[in-house]
């Protein structure tokens, strides 16, 4: 068995976004040995990706500085893929394998965008809203490009403002929800001046970009890559030339690792108690996996989990009222940006739903459950393991996703064989590559 490194922590945090950073910092302040693992090249998660360079978010700068100076072992560019025995996780780097032992584990695995299929959504340059933003933050030149932003959720405006600031032309931002939903949501912000200021700043940055509600993409067009998109606007189709379509339908939590470790899931979220403890002993969960709540909620839950995992129960308790307020906001957000049922009819018979295995909508229509779809069509059986088509199928067909099996991410064959205690003959059977 070859493992490049074995490390042992009192508190191990999985995920280096706001919740994970806050958890690691607070746990370290209690004087215990803390490690934090993230699969990206740097910490910050998706929301703070690249924000340190432009100093835009005060919270990002604050927590990065706290984490930098904290006594925390940072393991970036490493992805956890299995727990071979209780208290031990395996993580894979670009060229190496790590065995991480923990007494307490904090899962702060964040969220991903929800993608919904419509004709043409598989064309190159149709990306997630957060997806395109991440690409621009990772160096993609966007100056002078035409970008249609569409989908639902508070991310759309933030992405549009970001892209415009970096020189993109945004012909329109399409939000699928209604004015009444938005108005109700805005009213709930009245007690939260910081959020109103944030909203006004975004509005200012957006300048003259049209923001339309009751609007969504009907089809993307192009030969080898995207050339134009047809949107439904006020019930009428309207086609716009563009270089990119940035399209995401709010967020879904990353709960695969929690499911693998046996944590109980309730209505799609990880069930936690007041100290962010999951139903599995010594495993905590914080941030988006417990309910999509945004960065403020994630920071509070992360701090509570970090303190509680390191024994600082009284200090953790002092953060409960703030977390309650953040969670109320989350519930309002959830209601405001619920995806409308009309979007279920966007895919046509040959629209691909599972992008890994190219399973079209018509084949899925004949199935009765997620399990049956997997067995009969290979939907959700490719390398993304249903992370993209699972939430889409759940929306389209109301299928409930079932159990998660290791490895929770595709891992290299030599690492899977280390896990099995010897060389494997048939790596593909374990979801392995190479």
């Amino acid at each position: 068995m070859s493992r490049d490194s074995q490390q042992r922590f009192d508190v191990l945090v999985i995920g280096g976004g706001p919740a994970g950073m806050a958890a690691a910092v607070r746990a370290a302040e209690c004087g215990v040995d803390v490690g934090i693992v993230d699969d990206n090249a740097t910490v910050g998660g998706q929301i703070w990706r690249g924000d340190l360079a432009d100093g835009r978010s005060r919270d990002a700068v604050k927590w990065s500085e706290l984490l930098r100076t904290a006594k925390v072992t940072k393991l970036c560019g490493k992805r956890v893929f299995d727990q071979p025995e209780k208290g031990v996780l395996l993580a894979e780097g670009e060229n190496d394998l790590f065995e991480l032992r923990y007494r307490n584990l904090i899962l702060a695995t964040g969220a991903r965008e929800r993608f919904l299929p419509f004709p043409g959504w598989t064309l190159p340059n149709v990306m997630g809203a957060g997806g395109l933003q991440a690409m621009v933050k990772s160096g993609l030149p966007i100056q002078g490009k035409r970008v249609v932003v569409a989908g639902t959720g508070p991310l759309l405006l933030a992405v549009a403002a970001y892209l415009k600031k970096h020189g993109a032309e945004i012909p329109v931002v399409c939000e699928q929800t209604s004015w009444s939903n938005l108005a109700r949501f805005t009213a709930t912000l009245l007690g939260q001046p910081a959020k109103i200021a944030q909203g006004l700043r975004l509005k200012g940055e957006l300048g003259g970009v049209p923001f339309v509600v009751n609007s969504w993409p009907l089809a993307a067009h192009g030969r080898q890559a995207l050339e134009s998109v047809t949107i439904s606007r006020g019930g009428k189709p309207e086609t716009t030339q563009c270089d990119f379509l940035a399209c995401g339908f709010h967020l879904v939590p990353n709960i695969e690792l929690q499911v693998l470790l046996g944590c109980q899931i309730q209505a799609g979220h990880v069930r936690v108690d007041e100290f962010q403890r999951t139903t599995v002993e010594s495993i905590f969960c914080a941030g988006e996996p417990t309910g999509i709540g945004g960065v403020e909620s994630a920071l509070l839950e992360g701090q509570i989990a970090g303190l509680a995992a390191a024994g600082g129960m009284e200090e953790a308790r002092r953060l409960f009222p703030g977390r309650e307020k953040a969670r109320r906001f989350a519930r309002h957000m959830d209601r405001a940006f619920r995806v409308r049922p009309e979007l279920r009819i966007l895919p046509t018979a040959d629209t691909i739903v599972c992008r890994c295995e190219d399973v079209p909508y018509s084949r899925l229509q004949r199935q009765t459950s997620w399990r049956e779809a997997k067995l009969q069509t290979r939907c959700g059986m490719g390398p993304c393991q249903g992370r993209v088509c699972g939430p889409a199928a759940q929306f389209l067909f109301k299928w409930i996703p079932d159990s998660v099996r290791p490895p929770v991410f595709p891992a290299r064959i030599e690492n899977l064989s280390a896990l099995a205690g010897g060389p494997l003959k048939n790596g593909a059977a374990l979801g392995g590559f190479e």
Partner: protein
Amino acid sequence: MLSQMTVMVNGSPVSVPSGTTVAVAVVMAGQACRTGVTGEPRGPLCGMGICFECRVAIDGRSHCRSCQILCRPGMQVRTDE
């Protein structure tokens, strides 16, 4: 100032600033990352290592998620492998 570097995408040079991901270099080169099971060209979707649409071969190692890996000078990237 960010320094520039050159990576090879399917044998053609692409000049990128340091800190650029391989996925970005592939999009800048105007290439699709892979071909789907039914022959469609595919490019990055999620930008965060979830969707696996951006996988390419890097320096001979296939199935690398190019959105998670930073360019290194002289890197050899092959799409559709």
